[in-house]
């Protein structure tokens, strides 16, 4: 029997809603079966908490007197993009500080704003008749600025490869420090808790879906960059590599530093842990088939990050139960594994979201448009105009 979002929201309103997180649903289905689970459970909360470079914030500072059309902008010496209206900027998480290098960057500026810390704003301008000021230096906090919203072009990737290093030297990558001769392997997906792995064909998650974004109620604003749903999939619907992705938006001023945290991968750069929770309405029995997915049903490929090419050699596929066990086998050698996303914090988010729904603080939305299932990913080739 199908359930509508409206019916589920009615249950939230009357506090009768039944919510499980994406880990709890696994045993629930095992015990009670698909039919019963679809009938009894209304919502399953999914979550992830991992470093997501494709993140950043739009900020409007308000105008000084006389006003300024900012051309170059720095926040705590981190450049922000100012090629939009006069006092609007976009600060990217991965942007590095011009004075502190990899020890500070856009993600840290965003975190400082969330923490309520003062941030130094410096801007230059060429001056116009309508905006005569040519420079400014001042301090801002999240309370002195106008709108500040996180707008992340690519988050919550639907699966991601694991990384290892076959070379004889340590390498420093966005997948972390990789020791020589397969000294370790790292991976990043939240697996059975991950939002898009629990709704692999985007039946419920779409444009306009309300989500938990770093402690605030945000939204899926579009499909993410490099959204590539055509990736090879298993019979259970899950892709074996990065397929779908989401562009997310939410009010920075309402976010919590516990779920939005700047970080630095040594030798690689600055990025940001983003905490995302997405409720999946149990609209029918088919949805339960997808939601019952567990770590051992989800596979990813291990790539050799010492090969500095777009296509890296693969050491085969492996499931998340093996990865999460802390030890896998590559070329008959035992290799220790570690995750660069936090399963424990993702689990926490799935439970926070669960409580919010149970307490009537979070209502579900139907998506206003679906995420595409046909989009493909292009590579960037070096071509002359004639070769295009």
């Amino acid at each position: 029997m199908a359930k509508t979002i409206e019916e589920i929201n009615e249950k939230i309103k009357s506090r009768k809603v039944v919510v499980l997180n994406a880990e709890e649903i696994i045993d629930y289905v095992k015990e009670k079966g698909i039919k019963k689970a679809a009938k009894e459970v209304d919502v399953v909360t999914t979550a992830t908490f991992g470093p997501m470079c494709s993140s950043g914030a739009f900020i409007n500072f308000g105008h000084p007197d006389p006003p300024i059309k900012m051309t170059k902008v720095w926040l705590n010496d981190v450049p922000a993009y100012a090629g939009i209206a006069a006092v609007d900027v976009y600060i990217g998480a991965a942007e590095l500080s011009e004075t502190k290098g990899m020890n500070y960057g856009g993600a840290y500026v965003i975190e400082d704003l969330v923490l309520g810390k003062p941030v130094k704003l410096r801007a230059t301008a060429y001056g116009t008749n309508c905006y005569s000021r040519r420079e400014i230096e001042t301090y801002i906090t999240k309370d002195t600025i106008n709108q500040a919203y996180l707008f992340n072009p690519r988050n919550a990737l639907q699966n991601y490869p694991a990384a290892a290093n076959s070379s004889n030297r340590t390498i420093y990558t966005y997948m972390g420090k990789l020791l020589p001769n397969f000294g370790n392997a790292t991976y990043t997906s939240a697996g059975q808790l991950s939002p898009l792995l629990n709704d692999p064909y985007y039946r419920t998650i779409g444009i306009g879906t309300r989500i938990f974004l770093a402690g605030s109620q945000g939204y899926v604003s579009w499909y993410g960059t490099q959204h590539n749903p055509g990736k090879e999939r298993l019979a259970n619907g899950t892709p074996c590599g990065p397929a779908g992705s989401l562009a997310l938006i939410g009010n920075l001023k309402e976010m919590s530093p516990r779920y939005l945290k700047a970080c630095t991968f040594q030798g690689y750069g600055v990025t940001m842990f983003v905490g995302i929770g997405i409720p999946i309405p149990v609209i029918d029995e088919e949805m339960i088939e997808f939601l019952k997915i567990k770590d051992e049903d989800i596979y990813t490929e291990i790539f050799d990050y010492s090969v500095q090419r777009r296509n890296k050699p693969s050491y085969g596929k492996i499931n998340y139960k093996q990865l999460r066990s802390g030890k896998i086998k590559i070329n008959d050698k035992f290799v220790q594994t570690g995750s660069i996303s936090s399963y424990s914090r993702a689990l926490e988010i799935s439970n926070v979201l669960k409580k919010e729904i149970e307490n009537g603080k979070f209502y579900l939305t139907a998506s206003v448009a679906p995420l595409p299932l046909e989009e493909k990913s292009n590579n960037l080739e070096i071509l002359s105009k004639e070769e295009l």
Partner: protein
Amino acid sequence: MIKRKLVLSFPENIVTKPITYKLVKEFNLEFNILRAEITPNMEGKMLIEIRGDKAQIDQAIEYLTDTGVSVQEAAKDIIIDMNQCVDCGICTSICITQALTLDSKSFKLKFNKDKCILCELCRDCCPVSAIKVHI
């Protein structure tokens, strides 16, 4: 029999003396040198695990201190800032002795000081700088 892990710092004037030999000979201690290094200004550092009678270990430490060796508990030298740590677990893949592991139920980081050999491989792998090593 008890076991302790110590960091011994040898100043320049005694760096050539056979001090560890005395630990065996005089105090009947078993020991395992986990790491040893002499820095360019000739200060020696040694990470050592000693095993023996408690009274004799205490006497040995007294002897070491009297000789001019500074003695520190080794486990105190690694600090994990749990307020910063997000329990990702990347350090658990680097830790060769598995002193750093994720709890199999809560997936939170656990640090077993007894297993740590202060190799420092983990120091620069933490994305939130929660691991601090003082040696």
